[in-house]
């Protein structure tokens, strides 16, 4: 291409491609915006959405599978063996053989990978659809699920264990 033709073509290309671009953007300006106006409208969350964790502690058998599966060790569980007469039953019929005085999930460490929910035999540890994670203090991210009953029973047991030792 000669220099003059190149010169003219440069100008022509610049003008015409700019106009083509403006046509594309101009057309888009009259389409419907895709924004979801967040506080007023909520996104439709799919069934498998992974939000923060929740444990239905009544169904928990204290098997520690979730704590083992967690890659970041944010699930802290303490268990203590129940006596035979205290055995409970979960909603799906599994025997509960442990008191669970501590079932804490530190959501500030959790990366919401969902791996802990997969090995759970009674499906009591689940992901919720809660996605607004902002809280006022770090303390609020530390979720405690243990029942007061279990805590008291185990505390009593511990005290009983210690008292005879102290008396001797």
């Amino acid at each position, binding site marked *: 291409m000669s220099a003059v033709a190149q010169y003219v073509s*440069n100008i022509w*290309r*610049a003008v015409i*491609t*700019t106009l*083509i*671009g403006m*046509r*594309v*953007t101009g057309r*888009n300006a009259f389409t419907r915006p*895709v924004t979801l106006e967040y506080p007023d409208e909520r996104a439709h*969350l*799919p*069934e*498998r*959405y*992974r939000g923060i964790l929740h444990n239905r502690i009544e169904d928990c058998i204290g098997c520690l599978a979730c704590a083992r*599966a*967690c*890659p*970041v060790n944010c699930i802290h569980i303490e268990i203590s063996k129940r006596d035979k007469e205290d055995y409970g039953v979960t909603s799906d019929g599994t025997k509960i053989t442990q008191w669970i005085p501590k079932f804490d999930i530190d959501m500030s460490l959790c*990366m*919401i*990978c*969902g*791996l802990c929910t*997969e090995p759970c035999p009674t499906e009591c540890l689940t*992901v919720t659809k809660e996605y607004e994670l902002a809280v006022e203090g770090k303390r609020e991210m530390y979720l405690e699920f243990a029942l007061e009953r279990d805590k008291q029973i185990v505390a009593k047991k511990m005290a009983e264990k210690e008292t005879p030792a102290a008396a001797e």
Partner: protein
Amino acid sequence: MPIDTNQKSTDLRTEEMIINMGPQHPSTHGVLRLEVTTDGEVVMDVRPFIGYLHRCFEKHSEKVGYTGVIPYTDRMDYLAAMNNNHGYVMTVEKLLGLEIPERAEYIRVIIAELGRISSHLVAFGTYANDLGAVTPLVWGFRDREYILDIFEMCCGARLTCNYYRIGGLSGDLTPEMLTKIREFLDYFEPKLKDYDRLLSYNKIFIERTAGVGVIPLEMAVNYGITGPPLRASGMKWDLRKDEPYSIYDRFEFNIPTGKGLKGEVGDCWDRYMVRMWEMAESVKIIRQCLAQIPEGEYISPKTPKMIKPPKGEVYVRVENPRGELGYYLVSDGKPNLYRLKVRSPCFTNLAIVPAISRGVMLADLVAIVGSLDIVLGEIDR
């Protein structure tokens, strides 16, 4: 246009200026620091500094068990989490000698190709933003959103997906999701034409990218460049075709290479355009998958509950959107892996920046770094 850097002016005492581009700079794609020696607008030397995003990925993975590594791979190349997962689970499966059900393989390919499109959309948008056009950025993110919605449906998260499992996947694709994917493809194909009209063939864009940051083929091979930058330099090398993994050998697709249509082979425009063409190829692959996908299991029933591969070592590489992602895994037969080394495509691609950006303008440096499409999460790991 390279400028002769050896030219010296004798009658005026001048000094070169050393300027820090990053770690907080709008166009370093994360926390890359480039120490740039400049003479006016001309770049004399560049030294990339990395490591601001180092999170001990390789050491962490020795502590968390084989399944626990998967969410960590999400966080390496956070724009193509699904593709990272794919490579890792294939590594462990190779070590275990595990067969994957047909349906799972199809789903894996569909999701990986969607991941490729979403990653290239971000590359397209951020590259346009580096060159001063903001609208393509927002459009890229707008259309990526539909893919993220699909990811959210199938695994529950948008970015850190954690969808692939050793032996299969964490959940099946329901018919509803397959329709959603089809709808997306129908929506997306005309958009590709819009992008071309808006940006790819724009005269200013061509002026800014054509002939800038040329990587000759020999140099690309010597530096170990992979992925779109290598293909832009003219080599037809794509692991999906040349060393087919998963079920990629069943599909018909082309491997776009740079042809130097607007400037020279291997310039920024070629690198950009290869990505645009690859998106169209990914759409083709997904369409074939959707047509062929069989019924069946989504996770192999033979998957052991406790994953404890035999002693041994294995190397698996996959074609990530950014290049060749390799996992080298050593197992000593214990529940935790012994050593995992990742061959990061962005790391090697970044290494070429000093070599090709001596003597370019400051604005070209931005264009070169952008065209390599690096993700610092993967470089630093």
